[in-house]
């Protein structure tokens, strides 16, 4: 298993090995699925679209519909205008969505297709039916990563759709960042429990976590309706959960419609959830109900009960930057010792954010943007950890080094829990505490000397 890594950190400048990120369009596709009755459209060769759909499907185990411009050599040379126009005709007449959300791929970016112009032309020529919407985002993968694509599509959604009428909705916009449908569901539950009026956008719950009913609907009931998105410009405030996936859209809405925003991290863990609840409470001027206090208290109780098993356990955390940033804070709350904190995302911003959270308390911690899993493996070989928190791609390192992996983030290709249970909010944190403690104690039970194998812990 993974025989190539040694405890020496290899010098590499051009070769990425086992990346901890993927490309922009998959994020754009995912964000677009959070609009009600929306068809994501991939403008480029069909391979990218096939890969993105397949990968999202493997994570959600749900239908993921998306169309492609299916470039061949001709389009690559002469541009993809004809392909996109034909695609729009087909999409509206065969699949009839309310919205088509176009994103680019590396290929159409290199060609330099001007999507807004193509859309405008298609509209003028009557290729987009009356009342239907086409939006777009540029998502070149030679810039940023999958989270950039998600963020860019969220900005596109605001840019094309949000309006200001001047009549306040008295609602709060919640921009969830890249979270699972189970998380979005939990964010809404908490907002409802608080009695807050809100618009969550995008919202993939009831789109990518559908019940089995024997009936397939291409556009299920979930997703933020276009009407609601339009009215986001009239909200009191936006709460944006994640620097790398949500803040840019909040900024855009502020610029466009003057809606101020609070920039928070993903509400994973105790403090991050506190900040989410507190922001909603302050903005909406409501009291936090006792039921939420009790949830919080139960989480705290279990953290305290189990604290001894977490204390100073060295941990590697990797994945998408917003997930990793939030998880690092939670890990510290649990008493774990963050040792390697890796993201494939590009930019110093990630490292700065993590260092701010570590606050000098973990001087040995290695924080890395543009990191890859090969280097993570080398570092673990050189100086091991006792726990890995990350997505499914960590399972080989886990097996090679006999270290438990607790899956969180994206993608999770080999387990089902993320589809059912959230990681955000106090309940999400409880779920994570359970998973982490199970992993650590199972490992201990499997490997400790027999005389230390105990019935009660």
């Amino acid at each position, binding site marked *: *298993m993974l*025989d190539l890594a040694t405890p020496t950190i*290899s*010098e*590499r*400048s*051009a*070769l990425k*090995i*086992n*990346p901890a990120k*993927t*490309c*922009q369009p998959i994020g754009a596709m995912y964000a677009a699925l959070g609009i009600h009755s929306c068809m994501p*459209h991939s403008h480029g*060769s*069909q*391979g*990218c679209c*096939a*890969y*993105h*759909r*397949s*990968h999202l*499907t*493997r994570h959600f185990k749900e*239908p993921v*519909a998306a*169309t*492609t*411009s*299916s*470039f*061949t*050599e001709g389009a*690559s040379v002469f541009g993809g205008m004809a392909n996109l126009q*034909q*695609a729009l005709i*087909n999409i509206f*007449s*065969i*699949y009839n969505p309310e919205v088509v959300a176009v994103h680019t791929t*590396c*290929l159409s970016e*290199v060609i330099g297709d001007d999507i807004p112009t193509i859309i405008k032309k298609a509209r003028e020529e009557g290729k987009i039916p009356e009342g239907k919407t086409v939006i777009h985002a540029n998502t*070149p*993968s*030679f*810039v940023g*990563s999958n989270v950039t694509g998600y963020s860019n599509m969220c900005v596109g959604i605001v840019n094309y759709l949000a309006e200001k009428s001047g009549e306040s909705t008295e609602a709060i916009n919640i921009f969830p960042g890249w979270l699972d449908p189970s998380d979005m569901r939990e964010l809404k539950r908490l907002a409802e429990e608080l009695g807050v009026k809100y618009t969550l956008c995008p919202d993939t719950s009831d789109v990518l976590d559908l019940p*089995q*009913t*024997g*009936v*397939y609907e291409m556009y299920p009931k979930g997703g933020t309706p276009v009407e609601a998105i339009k009215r986001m410009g009239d909200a009191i405030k936006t709460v944006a959960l994640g620097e790398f996936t949500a803040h840019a859209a909040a900024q855009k809405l502020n610029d466009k419609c003057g809606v101020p925003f609070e920039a928070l991290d993903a509400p994973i863990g105790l403090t991050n959830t506190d900040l989410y609840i507190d922001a909603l409470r302050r903005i909406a001027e409501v009291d936090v109900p006792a039921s939420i206090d009790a949830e919080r208290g139960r989480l705290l109780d279990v953290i305290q009960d189990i604290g001894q098993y977490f204390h100073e356990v060295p941990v590697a955390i990797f994945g998408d930057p917003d997930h990793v940033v939030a998880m690092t804070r939670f890990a510290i709350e649990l008493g774990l010792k963050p040792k390697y904190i890796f993201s*494939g995302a*590009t930019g110093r911003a990630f490292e700065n954010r993590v260092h701010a959270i570590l606050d000098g308390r973990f001087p040995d911690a290695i924080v890395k943007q543009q990191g890859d899993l*090969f280097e993570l493996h080398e570092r673990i070989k050189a100086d091991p950890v006792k726990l890995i928190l990350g997505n499914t791609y960590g399972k*080989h390192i886990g097996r090679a080094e006999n270290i438990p992996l607790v899956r969180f983030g994206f993608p999770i290709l080999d387990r089902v829990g993320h589809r059912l249970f959230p990681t955000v909010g106090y309940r999400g944190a409880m779920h994570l505490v359970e998973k982490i403690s199970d992993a650590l104690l199972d490992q201990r039970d499997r490997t400790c000397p027999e005389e230390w194998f105990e019935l009660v812990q």
Partner: protein
Amino acid sequence: MSTEATIPTGTIEEVEGVTPDALREQMLKGLPSKTLRKRAKQIVSNDPETPPEIGANSRTIPGIITQRGCTYAGCRGVVIGPIHDILHITHGPVGCGYYSWMTRRNLARVPEGQTNYMQYCMTTDMQEDHIVFGGEKRLAEAIREAYRLFKPKAISVYATCPVGLIGDDIHTVCRLAKEELGINVFGFSCEGYKGVSQSAGHHIANNGVFKHMIGLDDTPNDAKYKINILGEYNIGGDAWAIDELLKKCGISILATLSGGVSYDEIINCHQADLNVVMCHRSINYMAEMMETKFGIPWFKVNFIGADSTAKSLRKIAKYFDDKELIDRVEEVIAAELAVLRPIQAEIKAKHQGKKAAIFVGGSRAHHYQDLFGDIGIETVSAGYEFAHRDDYEGRDVLPNIKVDADSRNIEELDVEPDEARFRPRISPEAKQKLIDAGFAFSDYLGMMREMKKRALVIDDISHHELEHLIKTWKPDIIGSGIKDKFIIEKMGVPCKQLHSYDYGGPYASFAGAINFYKEIDRMLSTKVWSYVVPPWVKDRKAAAPEAPAEEQKAA
């Protein structure tokens, strides 16, 4: 056409009261005119006696939800990816390499001393600068770094769409690296846009493997019956199952292209005396080229399905024309069938008369009809994702296929007999004798000759058509891929993934067939579907019997 065809009798007049023609009309109705014209050619009602012409290997229509992937996927993902001990570098932005990393189930057992590069995704992860100023330097550096760190036997480089567009010359970079490092380094211009599907990538990969690997090592191999299996990718361990079976018969496999296979096996595999082809679509080029250059004959086999497996074994034995082998093969078949038949009979009794539809790949939509047929399940509709007309209509149609601009893009290697190494493996007289007795060399009869009259054959099926098929014909089970699986299952129909096997398998050979029967039995017998409608809804329905069709089906 050889006499090997067993034309099925009977006609599919209608399914669930709807004729194939009526269903076809339903699928086409309401499509924009240009789309309709194109799809009309790709949906045909079958005639096994004289297969009708089908539109295939043509461009995918923009805006249609297709199953298809790209040329890169067909090259790096399908044909070369499974060679586990060469180091693969995807030259491009991160995504293409990332998605082709361990997502296809070509399994490998790696002997001590070899490295399993399949667990690694190596990419140049191109950034904006490289797109603007060119990525050749970065690629050269990446190759150097890979060699310095890992010392592989060979490095294989794959170009993705943006690379082709900015004009990076990967072949020169590879040639220079080969000189500098003294190992085999070669590249594939398999940019996704190069073809209309994965299929172009298969061809490009065949060319590259042939040019850069086949024939490099002339070490003789003195095994008695030496063959290669071409077009078998060891998904879910199929190649191992075939291996085991052939070993029992005393037949040696030098290489399986490409599944559970090493570089050393591939460079020596021209020592074989026969190539048998599983997936015609992805590897027929290689079979032809090896025959021309080295004189190794080829024929089509199918180890999917009990009767097909027996037939394929007998054909191999007949080719070697050795009494000892023929007897041994009969013994093995008898022993295997003695185990298989009772299990088959029991499961068949439960599912006889059920209906399947299969839409995958370039050969499985055909092969798996045999396995379903083994347990009495009839395939009423099938189609490939990226096959060509010859895979539907049979190889005799080849001279009539128009070569369009997209196919002309792909290099046709000019192969000549190798003066020193060309050696006919079977005398012309012996070969003629076999042919006279109805033995087909270098042939594939295609899917249509083995499907019933008026079965609906659908090339590159789209989401829209699949929905109609399910709603109207209500198949009991569908074989498809990951992108369709959950759509189908949301409609209350079990879907067996025939790309990844839903992480099960093997399904090849007799042992694999048993696995498949049991798996299909599980899927068709599961209680899950009976729980879909909650008890209170059942009550509601009793009160209002005109509930929608879908709901009734789910019940």
